[in-house]
């Protein structure tokens, strides 16, 4: 009996879906220093992050998510990962990091996991702004290039670091541009840039 037959998702996803960690509970008086909300009910998912921040570290975190099992599990996993993490490091977390920690997500579900890190960054950005430090971590964030498969500039950068030099090799490594192909011009531009930086 294969895993796919047992459940759509990995056991880790199932665990975080059925027993999500750090969900905001209105009764517990969680005094957040920062809040970030992204997503849209129209698209079927919305996420909110609440952070307690001390000494530029995430001291504690709560969240809420409207979405499918993979959206709920991704947010839960992300909340576990960032607890105690320096803000700057948390700011740079990519959806794929979370997907990996979840034991992988089905291809058509990757996009469900992209909102978590965006909500987290929105919360951190709002906090930075309040501290008069707006835009301080801008360089840490990954930008989604391929929206079909949610592949970021950081993914392209890493693929190039690992040896990809051509569009075909980049596709081999990341599957970028294999759905609608709309990202190809932007992705090729980045590929050239990173090959220039890292290529021998």
């Amino acid at each position, binding site marked *: 009996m294969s895993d796919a037959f047992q459940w759509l998702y990995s056991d880790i996803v199932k665990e975080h879906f059925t027993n999500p960690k750090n969900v905001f509970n209105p009764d517990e008086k969680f005094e957040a220093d920062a809040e970030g909300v992204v997503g849209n009910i*129209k698209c*079927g998912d919305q996420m909110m992050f609440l952070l307690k921040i001390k000494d530029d570290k995430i001291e504690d975190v709560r969240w*809420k998510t409207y979405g499918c099992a993979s959206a709920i599990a991704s947010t839960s996993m992300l909340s576990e990962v960032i607890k105690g993490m320096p803000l700057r490091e948390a700011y740079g977390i990519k959806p794929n990091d979370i997907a990996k920690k979840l034991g992988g997500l089905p291809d058509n579900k990757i*996009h469900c996991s992209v909102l978590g890190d965006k909500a987290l960054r929105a919360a951190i950005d709002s906090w930075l702004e309040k501290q008069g430090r707006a835009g301080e971590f801008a360089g840490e964030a990954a930008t989604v290039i391929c929206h079909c498969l949610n592949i970021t500039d950081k993914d392209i950068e890493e693929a190039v670091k690992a040896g990809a030099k051509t569009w075909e090799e980049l596709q081999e490594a990341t599957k970028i541009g294999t759905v609608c192909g709309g990202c190809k011009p932007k992705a090729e531009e980045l590929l050239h840039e990173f090959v220039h930086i890292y290529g021998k």
Partner: protein
Amino acid sequence: MANRFVYMDYNATTPLHPEVKRAMIEDFEIFANASSMHEAGRRAYARVEEARASVARLIGAPDPSCVYFTSGGSESNNTVFNTMYDLGRKRDEKGRLRNKIITTAIEHPCVLRSAEHLRDEGFPVVFLKVDKDGRIDMEELERELDPSRSAGGPTLLVSVMAANNEIGTIEDIARVAALAKARGAFVHTDATQAAGKIPVDVEAWGVDYLTLSCHKIYGPKGIGGLYVRKGAPIDPLVRGGHQEKGVRAGTYNNQGILGFGEAARLALAELPDYEKRVRALRNRLRDGFLARVPHIRVNGHPTFVLPNTLDVSFPGAEGESILLSLDMEGIEVSTGSACASGSLEPSHVLMATGVGPELAHGSIRFSLGRLTTEEDVDYVLEKLPPIIERLRRISTVSSACPDETPAIKK
């Protein structure tokens, strides 16, 4: 593992009726090509014709030769639209075209895509809107049929489903056909979900074409039917054989056809009891939800609705999450959420009724069947409310829990 299994996805497909299964196993010995001239072939053909008569009886067709066997509902629907492709390009003696196609926004994708294909080929195509309960507006249909009040010229085909697969709403096909006939248009109805659940009568409805699927009525998959009124034009989608009077080539699927015949016979015989019993169970489920789960919306028409179909939106909870949570309790349903479909768009049917994306994403279809029991219904009524409560607690959507909007420290 759940300790109980409750299948409530009968609109997706049904298990074989035990009598269909028994008949098919017995008939598995019939291997001969039903087109062969020898005795074994003639014997097989006789059984095919018995099945045809049985399917004809299910839909009130007086002449069994009006029933053609296909591979299923999708093929039947495609065959009708393919026929229109040829008809709509022919000019009459005065050089005029009749090629307007009128269908609805809530059809099955195989009709929607077929209609869009004709539109891409230059045919004027109209997708009728539906009201909040999923019913079409007869005045809009009349207007679209009238070339002096709408664009596109005279109408070639009106195709309206008899009952919707998602929300179960039943359309007034007799009225649709009367209006269409008055304007000289052909009338097709996709009765895939209606057959075996409500009375289907091609004569009383006055349709030219009617689509059937066997696996929705406790028969095998891969077999379906197309009723074509005598004299109505029909072109083959699958060419190259004399089977089905040249309308559908391909060696007869003996076992499928015999299974279809048996399933149709049983569906007709069991219909009065089915309608009464299953509707009572459906209403028990509906009333139970309304009593136990706050802020829900029952989709579909309150009375013109299939006896087995209950579509409910649970705002604040997302459909795939509900579906998988129910699945873990052994309850099998389907959802109109985008997340479950692999696309980013929620159910086109619910969106057409104007419920809005949040209600569409949070919709669950419970479709009951001949094996559903009162205990099954009560089990779902026990398991579902805590699932919705849990998902709403996690959810950002405040409409479900307006008092729980988090406060941020100033």
